[in-house]
């Protein structure tokens, strides 16, 4: 039987850990709510953009833009991976990394040159361990990535794409579907092939008004396509941030529950140890008394 004092010490330390995991769970819950609000705000923005595109299409504007055209022989591809800066979030980073590795291999076999960028310390270390070289590394994004900074990154990608420095841009991140479902996905952001997809989404608009375009439909289209790319990239960052908080929340909830179970188990063992110690002492006293009586 284990030493009762050692058991008690262990139980105390687990109690302290439980306090920490519980606090982390509460913090993650609060951050998750904030991140969700931001994600809802960006959805309002993308909905409006989608409506504008749908109206441009409805007005008979031909949707043609260099960013929408797929290049025949891509020479250079770029891959951006979104991971977290901090750990203790369950399998969040591991599942993203598990998606990255096969995608890197398939890209390497189809495109002559591949550049990998990564956001988040966990991703930087994970890719280093897997011997995948990374070019740009971002560690400044936490649970509320600011649009200004992501816009800068997006503008740089747009510049590279326009100049032919890259022919394709992929992103690996954890897409948020619901609180119980987040899936690591690979999406191609450039060329922006999915503008047609958004066309379909905005098609159900109830307005039948004839729109006037100022200064012209082409000028609006020229501006709206880069904007929708920037917002799409921003949404990926927000989705990743929300998913990270959900993953942390669930992981910490599990840890708190496990700590509770462990404390229960240890308490039982401790009580038994204590009881057997007392029994032992009584036996000794009785033995002593009996020896004296003889």
């Amino acid at each position, binding site marked *: 039987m284990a030493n009762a004092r050692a058991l008690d010490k262990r139980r105390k330390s687990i109690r302290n850990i439980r306090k920490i995991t519980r606090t982390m769970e509460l913090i993650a819950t609060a951050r998750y709510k904030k991140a969700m609000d931001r994600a809802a705000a960006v959805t309002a923005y993308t909905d*409006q953009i989608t409506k504008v595109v749908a109206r441009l299409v409805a007005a008979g504007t031909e949707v043609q833009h260099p960013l929408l055209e797929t290049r025949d022989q891509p020479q250079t591809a770029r891959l951006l991976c979104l991971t977290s800066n901090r750990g203790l979030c369950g399998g969040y980073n591991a599942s993203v990394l598990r998606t990255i590795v096969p995608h890197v291999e398939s890209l390497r076999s189809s495109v002559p040159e591949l550049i990998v960028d990564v956001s988040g310390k966990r991703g930087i270390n994970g890719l280093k361990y897997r011997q995948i070289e990374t070019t740009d590394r971002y560690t400044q994004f936490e649970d509320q990535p600011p649009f200004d900074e992501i816009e800068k990154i997006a503008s740089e990608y747009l510049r590279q794409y326009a100049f032919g420095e890259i022919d394709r841009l992929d992103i690996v991140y954890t897409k948020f579907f619901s609180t119980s479902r987040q899936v690591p996905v690979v999406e191609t952001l450039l060329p922006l092939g999915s503008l047609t997809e958004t066309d379909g989404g905005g098609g159900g608009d109830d307005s039948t*008004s004839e729109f006037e375009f100022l200064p012209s439909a082409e000028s*609006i289209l020229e501006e709206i396509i880069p904007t929708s790319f920037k*917002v799409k990239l921003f949404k990926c960052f927000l989705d990743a941030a929300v998913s990270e908080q959900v993953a942390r929340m669930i992981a910490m909830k599990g840890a708190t529950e496990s700590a509770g179970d462990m404390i229960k188990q240890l308490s039982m063992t401790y009580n038994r140890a204590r009881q057997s110690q007392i029994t032992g002492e009584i036996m000794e006293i009785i033995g002593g008394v009996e020896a004296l009586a003889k």
Partner: protein
Amino acid sequence: MPIRCVVVTPERTELDRVVDSIILPMYDGELGIRRGRAAMIGRLGYGQMRLHTEAGIESFFIDGGFAQVDQDVVSVLTSRALPAGSLDVDQVESELAEALAAPSSSPEQQRLKAASVMRARGMLRTAIRHQ
């Protein structure tokens, strides 16, 4: 005769209120909107947006984007909407000087420089008008 104005940025819905009229900084000049304006979609420039309300005039700096007018609802989609009161003339002037000093040796740099100069000038105009 009121009209609804909604300003949306990617980070949040900045503004949603009923106003008398709106003056928008379009790509090629200002545009005033009152109730009953025909439906339109326009490209915004960098400049001052003014909302005429019963309490007076409110002004904001709009950082490009799009505006849509449909059934007496004006939706402004922009990357940033700053209240004109939050702009500091000295700071904006230094931003303009910085933008003017940027290199412009390649066509891409020229384009970037032109955009940042236009943005800084729009900001400066907004800040000075608000003083």
